Every structure is written in C-alpha cells, then in structure tokens.
C-alpha cells in the first residue's frame, strides 16, 4: 500500500477515535464550543486529506458530516437524533477506512442515502436567528480540483447542491464560509506553519501537509471565538484576527507550534520491542557483573560497575517509557459504545472515566482493551436498571458507571463500578445449577463472594434473553482469561441494589516483574509477587496450628483455614511422606507482607507445625482461591526479566517463564494460575473441607474469640483480650526497642510504633518479646506481653469486676481465672489521639465534629486523607472533581466546610470556589484550598479567589490542626 495512504489511515483511525469520544461528550454538553470546534476540525482534516488522496467516496461522507457539525458549531440546536446521524456517518467512514486498509482501495457502492439523511438533518438544524445555510459547497469544489478523478462523486455532489441551494437565505452563510476559507488561506502565517510542518514531518508528507494544515491549524481559533457571535460580528472578527495575524506573525507562529507540533516521531513497534529485548539482556549482564563485584572486596571495578548499573537502570526506565501508553487509548471507544447501548436499551447512563492518563505497557494495553469493553457493556446491560426501574427505586434516573485507573506499587489498578442493581446471587446460583456449572452441594458451601465469582466460570450467562449486547455465553470467563494471561487478577464486589465493582490488578509491564525467590530441596524458583499475599514463617516457637483434615495439611491463618501444599510435592521433587503433624500450641509470629486486598480478618497467625523448622508458607491469592505453598527457604525478591520457556516445556502449566538471576543461575518462574490449578487437582478435597471448616470457624468468631496471653514471664495469671481488637501479632527483638523520653517505641512498617509494657518486670526488656498490635487508621500501638497462650472461642463473661485500672475484670477461660485487659484504659492514658478515634467508633459516629466536603481529582489522595479526617471525628464526603462537588452540594447536603484541591482538570479549585460563592448557602461558607504549590504568590491568589485558608497538600498535621481550630471557633460562634 502507498505509504502516504497507510499513514493517512493510521491518522484517520486515531482522529476517528477522538471524534467518537468527543461527540458523545458533546451531546451531553451541547454548549461546549471547544469540543465542537475540535470535532469539526478533525472531520474536516479527514475530508481534506481524502480529497488529496483521491478517496472520493470517503471524502463525500466526511464532507456531509462536516457540513452538519458545522451547523452545530454555528449554533444550531443539537438533537440526539442529529448526533446519531453524525455517528452513522462516522461509522460509514470507519467502514470505508477499514476496507481501504484491507484492499488498498475504496469499496464499491455509494453513500447517497446516508449523505441525503445527513444533509436533510443539516437543513433542519436551523441556526438561531437565521434559517439555514449552505455550508462548504465551495470548498468541495476547491478540493475536487486537486483530485485527478471524481466521476463517481459528481452525481452526489450535484444532488447535495440541489437539495441545499433551494433555500435562498442560505447564501449569506455560504459567503461567509467561503470568505473564511479565503481569508485563512491568504493569511501569511499559513506558509510559515506549513513550512514548519514540513520541516518537522519530513518531505514525503509535504503535499499532504499543505492541504491538511491550513484547515486544521488555522481553524483552531475562529470556531471557538465566533459561534456565539452574530453573523456580522463574525466577519469583523475574521478581519480583525486576520489583521492581527498579518501584523504579528511571530506570536501566531509560536502558538501554532505549541498547538500542533510536538517533537515526536513515529517508531515502528518492532524496533521498540527489539530495543527492549536488548535492554533486558543488558540488565541481565549488569546483574551478573554486580554479583561478581559483590563477591570481591576492594576491586577496581566497583565504581565503573556502579556507574554501569545506574546507566542501565536509566536506560531501562526510559525504554519502558517508550512502551508506555495512556490507558485512555483503550478507553476511547467506550463513551460511544455506552451511548449507543444506552439508547438501544433505553437506559440513561453516565460514564465517568478517571485517570485515563495512567500509563501502562502497550502490550498489556492491547490485552485489556477487549475485556474492558466487554465489561463496560456488561455494566450497562446487566448492571444498570432501566430508567423506569431506577425511578421506582428512588435512584437518580441516570445510572453511573465509573471507570478509573491508577498506579499502585508497580501495578495498575483498574476499577469499574456501577450504581445499578448489583449481582443477583440467587439468580447466579440458579443459573449455575441450570447450566450444570457446579454441583448443588458445592454451591451450598460457598460464601457470597465465591458465588459472585461464579460469573467468571466458562459458559456462564444470566441475561434473561440473548440480546445484541450480551448473553451470548462469551462472557466473563474470557475476560478473566485475558487478564490472567497478562499476569493480572480480577476481583469483584457487589451489593444488592447498590451496584457492583470490578477491580483489575495488572502488572505495568510483562517483560520485567518483581518476583520472590524461594528454595525447596536445593532448587530455586521464582514466584511473581503479584499473587503473593504474605509469608508465614513456621518455626519452633510459634503458637500455631497446622491441622490435618482428611490427611491433608491446612494452615489456620487468621481464623481461616488455608489448604497447604509443599512445593516439593507440587513439583514432585521427591516422594517423601509429608511430615506434618499436629502438635501442642506454641508461640507464633507473623512475618507478613501486607497485601493490597485487605480482608477484614484479624492478622493473627496460628500455625502449629513441625513441617521442617523454619519452613516458610507462601500464602498466595489467585482468582478466588487462597492457599499456602510450603517452601524450605525464602531468599529475596528480585526484579526478573521474564523469558519464555522453550516449546518443549510449554506443556507444563506450572511454569510461566524462565529467568536468569544476577548470579547467572537460570531459574524457572512459577505460574500462580498453574499452581492454583495443580492445587485443585491434588487437593480439591482438602480445599473443600478447608472452606467448610473455615466457614464454620467464621461463624464461631462471631461468638467471641479471645486471645489469651501472659503479661510477664512469671506467668501468674493469664490475661485475655478480644481477638478482634488485635490487628496483628509480632515478635520483636528487645534490642530494636528505642526509648524516647519516657516512652518505648519500635520501628514498625516504616513508622515508629509506641509500645506499652503491661508488666514492669525488667526481664521483659531483654530477648524476644511478643507484641499485640492495635491499629486504628494510621495509628498503631503495641502491647508487650511475654507469651501468647491460645485463642479460644468463648463468650466473654466477666464474673468479677476489677478495682485495678487497666483490667476490666476477671473471667473464666479454659477453667482458669483470667484477667480481661481494658485496652481503652491504656490507650486513653497514653494516647489521647488514639482515644478520640476509638471513642468515635464506640459512639458510632454520634459525635461528629463537623461535616466537610473534600474535593480532589486524585483518588490516591482522597483515599489517603479521608480515613485520617474520619478518624479525627469529621464527617467526610469526597468528590473527584469540581463538577461532582457541585453536584453533591446541590443534591445532597450542606457542609460546614469545603476543602478543595487547586489543580484539577476541567474545573480547578479557583473556579469551583467562584461557582460555590454564587450559591447562596455557600456565600459565607468556609472554603479551604489544598495545594502542592505552596508559594506566597499562590497563597495570595487563593485568598483573592475567596479561599478562607490555604493548606499545603501533604501537611496532614497542619490540616488537622487547622480543622480543629476552625470547628472549635465555629461551634463557639
């Protein structure tokens, strides 16, 4: 295919995607002239280029579309019908483009009917204050001169002409547009821009650019500025601008530069892939070198290797960047799809997309494009109710679908939520039984969450009937497969009547992943970190249970039973008997890595084993399964370069790749999905038992689990504390404890955690101690105890109330009198801040200090700040944009205070404030600004715009302090 045409097709496809998206936005906000201007320009560019390339059929359709959009741009009222017609036109363009791509030429046939429809619509779309117009007839003729052939087109053009020229009044507009064209073409700036363009883009594009550029670049300004003006004013404006342009070519050129000419080049994807592979090799070699240097003391290579290492890291990072694309690329088509669907299904839908600029590897992007589209369709079709149903339910008529993406520690998280009816678990159950996807007895054992995940089973569909949209049995299982193929996981939560939320977590890139290196029987393997939830150490001093159910070992972890499998069994490294025995309780420790998906369970580890002392259990979460893999050693986490396994090894599903470690050793990468499957085969009985037992156990937890412990080494009387208050049990070496002023603290998860000694015995200050960690929000406190005895399920029945502070009373557990710890007393005594939040918990939000609305476009920031503010006693509502904030304020409630970010897209903090000040209730309300830009100028500007206060974005303490003062004064007033 002609290189020029190929390039044109590529550009056209990009433009079409953009136009699609913008048209839908436009339909919602028809008064947004800027969007309209953009759309007009894009269609116009397509048209112009087509004309040049001799693609007459395409040109005619584009022309008609431009015609209609031009009407809107000039102020005609946008009807839904009109938008549909324009979209039809775009679809036709897409079709023709696709054909050209396939065959190299335009398909047979003509589009007269469609063009007629479009023109009729254009005629009907009257401008306010004038009747109709003949838009770009002259332009077509001009363009046609540039074409070699146009026989086929003539007929249509004539037809178009006759239809339109019938109206006499149209002439005025006709002239003006022609005038526009003339003026633009005559403007001196044109050539400069064109030249500039040519320089940047290269010679072979010269001709194309000359046509394309005047139309696309020069129309930039006029549409935006004119539309609201009257006809006359338009004329004046043109000549004025024209004069300006002539008078001041310099600044004009500068804007043109900033508008259209980013310093970019197109690079073949294969070249990038190659580069990436080369860099991967380099990384390996670097790792090897580093390893060698590490072993040598005092070598002269140290410095150069260090330097090499830095350069390599830089290079790697930059190469990765070239592969990164904003996720918005995969989303572009969604607004259009949602719009079409919402009409088809007669539902009002608002699709909100956050974080479309979030970048990820293009390979990954390609893989999630289709699953995402499918999921969004599903949300509209199955998730949301019809408008009528929503009305009846008292929900707002318009269903919300929110798609957001953000980065989190090397992964990208994509969330898709709707406020529809939620998954109908009953129906899923019924359907699964009908389709025989699952056996009734299996179903009975399942938790609600597990039932919800049944929608990922192959062949599942609950749609009442097969529609165009969905219900064809190609469903969520394909979505899940695709996501798992790229090493991602998908999860969902749903609330009946309130909606569902899907969460997808995928690695940023496939080429280099972070992996945990484990060892078993002297062999090493890599496990991708993504699926590793935590590591549990099994050692002699642990108070822990590895139980046997039906001869298979299970790990009791935070009151859940996890099926266990030794990696050596999984890999059939030898056939030794698994030597896992039950044993009496000992102490426990949890060497855990916090996972992202927090279960509400309390992180207390109870493992009891003598598998092999010092064995590790790698707790993995794959799909809806959680299980433990026992390994002999855990070495390290390492960034590994994933290489494919040889053909002849691909049949082994337990490996996902191979890698070379820094030491030069080759190791296999275990595939979490493969393990999970192998697990099911090896161990399905255990798993079921474990799940069942675990369910029972959870029920037991509801009665009351108490943790029994000794507070000192004399072990006089056991003490007890409700297990659910405890977040985690830790073992801490006393030498790590630091004493600041009168308080003992220990470094814990990157922060200092205060320790409370329940006993004053000095022998508690040496050796290894056990710590019960209590956490609320951001704040953790450790209680030092000497030994953990057991966890028991028993009702707390205090028989004797204590006189002593810190003790609630005495109760009988396991036949022993046991003192029940009054956690509140210590916290109150030592940490008033803590107490504030616990008290709030107890009073269940009765004593709200005040209500505030927090506005920030970064969900990360909202997530970070909201718990802090809530813990401090404020009722917090969040909004992700200025628009949302206004919506909340208008529809829901009044707030004592609004805190807003300054830098936000669409509507920034200043604008929001101005808008708020126009609402009577908010004229006197306090509005605080949050910003990262904490300079005196911006503070000044903030005060001028009506902010009452200005806070640095990451000054959490400052914010809390300010709020305290504000609400105290407020109350007093």
């Amino acid at each position, binding site marked *: 295919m002609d290189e020029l045409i190929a390039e044109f097709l590529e550009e056209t496809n990009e433009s079409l995607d953009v136009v699609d998206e913008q048209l839908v936005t436009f339909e919602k906000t028809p008064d947004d002239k800027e969007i309209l201007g953009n759309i007009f320009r894009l269609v116009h560019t397509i048209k112009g280029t087509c004309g040049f390339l001799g693609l007459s059929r395409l040109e005619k359709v584009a022309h008609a579309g431009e015609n209609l959009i031009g009407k809107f741009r000039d102020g005609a009222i946008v009807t839904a019908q009109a938008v549909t017609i324009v979209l039809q036109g775009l679809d036709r363009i897409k079709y023709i483009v696709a054909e050209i791509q396939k065959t190299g030429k335009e398909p047979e046939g003509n589009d007269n009917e469609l063009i007629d429809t479009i023109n009729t619509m254009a005629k009907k779309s009257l401008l306010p204050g004038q009747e109709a117009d003949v838009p770009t007839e002259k332009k077509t003729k001009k363009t046609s001169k540039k074409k070699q052939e146009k026989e086929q087109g003539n007929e249509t053009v004539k037809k178009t002409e006759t239809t339109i020229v019938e109206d006499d009044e149209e002439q005025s507009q006709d002239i003006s547009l022609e005038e526009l064209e003339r003026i633009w073409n005559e403007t001196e700036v044109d050539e400069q821009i064109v030249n500039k363009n040519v320089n940047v883009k290269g010679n072979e594009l010269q001709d194309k650019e000359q046509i394309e550029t005047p139309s696309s670049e020069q129309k930039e300004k006029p549409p935006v500025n004119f539309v609201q003006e009257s006809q006359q004013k338009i004329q004046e404006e043109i000549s004025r601008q024209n004069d300006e342009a002539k008078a001041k070519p310099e600044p004009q050129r500068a804007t043109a530069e900033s508008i259209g000419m980013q310093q970019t080049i197109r690079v073949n994807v294969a070249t990038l892939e190659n580069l990436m592979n080369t860099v991967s090799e380099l990384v*390996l070699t670097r790792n090897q070198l580093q390893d060698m240097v590490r072993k040598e003391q005092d070598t002269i290579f140290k410095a150069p290797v260090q330097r090499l290492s830095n350069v390599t890291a830089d290079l790697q990072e930059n190469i990765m960047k070239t592969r990164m694309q904003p996720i918005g690329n995969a989303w572009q088509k969604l607004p259009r799809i949602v719009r079409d669907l919402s009409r088809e299904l007669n539902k009002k839908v608002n699709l909100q997309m956050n974080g479309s600029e979030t970048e990820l590897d293009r390979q990954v992007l390609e893989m999630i494009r289709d699953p995402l589209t499918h999921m969004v369709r599903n949300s509209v079709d199955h998730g949301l109710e019809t408008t009528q149903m929503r009305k009846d339910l008292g929900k707002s008529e318009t269903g919300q679908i929110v798609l957001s993406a953000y980065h989190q520690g090397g992964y990208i998280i994509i969330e898709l939520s709707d406020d529809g009816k939620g998954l109908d678990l009953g129906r899923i159950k019924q359907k699964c039984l009908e389709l025989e996807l699952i056996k009734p007895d299996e179903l009975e054992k399942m938790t609600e969450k597990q039932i919800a995940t049944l929608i990922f089973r192959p062949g599942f569909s609950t749609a009442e009937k097969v529609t165009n949209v969905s219900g064809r049995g190609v469903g969520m299982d394909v979505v899940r497969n695709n996501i798992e193929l790229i090493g991602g996981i998908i999860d969902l939560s749903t609330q009946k009547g309130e909606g569902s939320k899907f969460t997808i977590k995928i690695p940023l890139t496939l080429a280099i992943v972070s992996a945990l290196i484990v060892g078993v029987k002297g062999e090493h393997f890599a496990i991708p970190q993504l699926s590793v939830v935590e590591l549990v150490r099994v050692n002699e001093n642990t108070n822990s249970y590895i139980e046997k159910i039906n001869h298979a070992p299970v790990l009791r972890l935070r009151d859940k039973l996890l099926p266990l499998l030794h990696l050596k069994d999984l890999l059939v490294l030898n056939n030794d008997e698994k030597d896992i025995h039950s044993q009496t309780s000992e102490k426990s420790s949890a060497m855990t890595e916090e996972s992202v998906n927090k279960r509400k369970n309390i992180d207390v580890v109870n493992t009891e084993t003598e598998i092999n002392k010092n064995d590790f259990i790698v707790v993995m979460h794959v799909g809806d399964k959680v299980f433990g893999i026992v390994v002999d050693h855990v070495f390290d986490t390492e960034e590994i370069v994933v290489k494919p396994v*040889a053909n*002849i090894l691909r049949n082994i599903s337990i490996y996902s790749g191979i890698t*070379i470690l820094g030491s030069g050793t080759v190791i*296999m990468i275990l595939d979490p999905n493969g393990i999970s499957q192998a697990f099911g085969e090896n161990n399905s009985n255990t798993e079921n038992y474990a799940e069942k037992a675990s369910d029972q156990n959870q029920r037991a937890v509801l009665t009351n689990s108490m943790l029994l412990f000794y507070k000192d080494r004399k072990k006089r009387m056991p003490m007890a504390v409700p297990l659910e208050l405890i977040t985690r049990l830790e073992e801490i070496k006393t030498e790590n404890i630091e004493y600041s002023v009168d308080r003992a603290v220990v470094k814990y998860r990157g922060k200092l955690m205060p320790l409370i000694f329940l006993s004053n015995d000095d022998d508690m200050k040496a050796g290894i101690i056990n710590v019960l960690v209590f956490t609320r929000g951001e704040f953790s406190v450790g209680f030092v105890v000497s030994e953990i005895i057991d966890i028991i399920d028993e009702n707390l029945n205090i028989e004797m109330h204590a006189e002593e502070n810190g003790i609630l009373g005495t109760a009988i557990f396991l036949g022993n009198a046991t003192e029940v710890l009054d956690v509140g007393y210590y916290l109150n005594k030592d940490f008033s801040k803590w107490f504030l939040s616990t008290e709030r918990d107890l009073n269940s939000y009765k004593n709200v200090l005040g209500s505030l609305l927090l506005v920030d476009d970064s969900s990360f920031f909202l997530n970070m700040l909201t718990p802090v503010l809530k813990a401090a006693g404020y009722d917090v509502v969040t909004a992700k944009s200025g628009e949302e904030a206004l919506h909340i304020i208008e529809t829901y409630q009044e707030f004592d205070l609004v805190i807003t970010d300054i830098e936000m897209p669409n509507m920034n903090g200043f604008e929001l404030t101005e808008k708020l000040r126009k609402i009577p209730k908010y004229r006197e309300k306090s509005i605080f600004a949050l910003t990262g830009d904490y300079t005196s100028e911006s503070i000044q500007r903030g005060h001028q715009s009506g902010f009452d206060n200005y806070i640095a974005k990451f000054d959490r303490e400052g914010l809390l302090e300010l709020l305290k003062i504000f609400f105290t004064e407020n109350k007093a007033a």
Partner: protein
Amino acid sequence: MVEFADENIVKEYITAKIDNQLFGFDISEILDVFVPQSITRVPLARPEISGVLNLRGRIVTVIDMYCLLDIKRNVQRTNKIAVGISHKSALYGLLIDEIGEVVKLKKSDIESIPDTLDEKWRSVSSSVVQLSGNLLVILNIAKIFDIIMVQNAA
C-alpha cells in the same frame, strides 16, 4: 532421506559419540559445541529434558540424548558435552559423550534406515551411513522435537 540436489554435492556432518555409537548431525544445523555447566533441573519435565542453563546470557534447554535414545547409562559419564542447536527461535543443547570429526558425505554414501534399527532410533533419524566399519546414524533435529512434543501431549 537427506536432500541432495545433486549426486556429487558433498554435505558435511559432525559426528558425535553416545555410548560408543556414532551419530551424525548436519553441520549447518549446529551452532555451537559447549561443556554445559550448572544445569537447572526443571521438575515435572519429561526425563529427556535435563534442564535449562545459561549460555553466555541466553537460556538453553538441555536434552539428554541418552534418555531420548533409550540408551542405558553403563558408565557414569564425566565429560559431558552438548551440541548447541536452534529450533523455532529457542536454543537447545543436546547432551552427548564425545564430539568427533567432521565427515563429508555424498548422496551415494547415504543409505535408508534399516528396519532392524531400534524403534526409538528410527523415529529420530533420517538415514544411516557405513563409515569404515562403523554405522553412523544421522539424526534429524526436527524429528527429535516432533517426538518430544508428541510425548508431551500424551
């Protein structure tokens, strides 16, 4: 049969000794001959796959020819040598005992595989050559991979 365009064209084969039996590889298919070091075992893989190793930064999958050809190991081999080949853009090393000399063969030297040859050997070889009293079995690399893939699928 090996393809010879012309009667007189000479093709070169490299000979390899496995348990005192001579085997031949088309020299154009051999990339490398190396002494494999630190082979990483691949659990669950077929027995003829010895493991994987790092050869100058590239990953090589090692195939044990003893196992593949069903030859019992009588002597514990000390000097293992591998013949490096490439198949479908992946690198492989075929473990043999000894590498021999290169022989030049004409089409007339090549004979078809005798029916009496071991079934396993027949499945991976393309022809045989009488070489000064020794029988040289010419191995066909594509066939080797075919047979492993078939066994994998089973």
